[in-house]
């Protein structure tokens, strides 16, 4: 019985300076959460989002930062020859927030 994750998780984000705080995650799949950090439109980090709701990215290089909460959407365990999942992937579960350094 392979599990089917139904519905879609979501969480709201609040920005305070460079600190991002997430609200409760509804429809939590239980899979790994991560903060995806982009600067000037380019992804620069994907950091594990643990039980603590707040996150502040350490990078202070100048640019426009965008942060979004993502969760791993397990669809199937198939992987390519490099070991990367082929159908399962991270999906956004929040609206992005942004700030400029």
């Amino acid at each position, binding site marked *: 019985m392979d599990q089917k994750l*139904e519905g879609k998780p979501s969480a709201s984000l609040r920005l305070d300076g460079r600190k991002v705080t997430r609200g409760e995650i509804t429809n939590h799949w*239980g899979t*790994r959460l991560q903060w995806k950090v982009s600067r000037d439109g380019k992804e620069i980090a994907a950091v594990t989002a643990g*039980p603590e709701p707040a996150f502040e990215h350490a990078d202070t290089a100048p640019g426009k930062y965008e942060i979004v909460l993502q969760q791993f959407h397990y669809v199937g*365990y198939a*992987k390519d020859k490099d*070991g990367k999942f082929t159908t399962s992937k991270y999906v956004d579960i929040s609206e992005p927030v942004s700030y400029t350094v």
Partner: protein
Amino acid sequence: MLHIGNEHIPLCSGTNRRSFLQLGAGAMTGMTLANLYKLKAAGAVDEKKARIRNCITLFLVGSPGQHDTWDMKPDAPEDVRGKFKPISTSVPGVQICEHFPRMAKVMDRVALIRSLHYNTGSSHENGQRWMMTGHDFNAANKQPHMGSVISRVFGPKGDLPASIVLPVGIGNTGTSTPHGQESAFLGSAHAPFFLGSDPARADFKVADLEPPKGQTEFRVEARRKLLTEIDEVQRQVETSSTLERDTAYARAFNLLTNPTTKKAFDLNEEPAKLRDRYGRNTFGQSCLMARRLIERGSRFVTVNQFDTVFGISCWDMHADGSSLNNTYADYEHVLCPQFDLAFTALLEDLQQRGLLEETVIAVISEFGRTPKLNARGGRDHYPSVWTNFLAGGPIRGGRVIGSSDKIGAAPHDRPVTPPQVVASIYQAMGIDLETTMLPGPGGRPIRFIEAEPIRELFA
């Protein structure tokens, strides 16, 4: 799907009861629930003995590697220590994998056993038999599942079966030998009730608690009345064992038609926030259902995290590039996070409801995994040492029983065997293993388990 066995119950006309019930509308699968209640019908339950604690067993099918979860070896060579890093826990000096951050906070309530081992083979089924029965055996000499033992000796507390397996039984894990989730010589009446569907699905229903397709509850009730009339005729010509069965069938109908019983399986009654806390996945929602069933009178609930090791994301990390291609990626993105969320939710939920003191949680698996990573970066079966753990009931948390050597290849001190874990579960449930006997094959009294409990779990 319900698995209660295939007991053949003859009527004096030569027609058996099952085939009678299959006449007409046919699928009367709910009838076989009757087998669950034979013991109580036979008056075998001593109500004083019945005041025992409950148990929820989380069976991690496939088996996590000890190096990558609860017995990390950060100082070992790279091809032994693996990819993950340890984190500190609420218990000074005890570290676990970084992907269990919630569990790290509740380690003071968990007792790790880091020196489990056996040497009778390394198939999944070997380990399943050991950890779910306390024995290894073959198909000709089956031993009963712990839940069946509890059902046989203590019976059900109410309308729910004493032993329930969620969400489904273990299927293909490699060989066709027994898995240890059967009632064996205790008879089909004590086989676990298998939920048979995924409680995380939006369309989830317990198939065997629904009237068979095409039948209304009215028709089920009409069928019950007809059966009662036939039973009355039978009762005059058959033995007392028939009476036991009659009562059992009556209780099966009660389970089929009792709204309270059906509600026990209805997760929609739980707050959405709590369902989220467990995780909206098969394992998380099964853990939540386990709590509901214990709360409503079941004594022993087993959650099989998976029913197979093939073609799904599970703990069996051979990384073989084919049907056993679980890797660190599965551990990191799926397995560890889902376990961390569900296990801690269960622990906290039971505690908040005042149920943790009367409920033992046993997290068990088949074996450990090889100390050295294989050529593909996976780990293979390794029963020579691994870690499982207990919590709840009288279990003293915040401690580690036994240890493995520097590379997690063998017990270093306090070796523990599967029967000792099973004996500890029984003792934690409040069963006096010196005075409580189990009717063995042929009714001969036998001990629950030929092993001593792990005393450090209780001291």
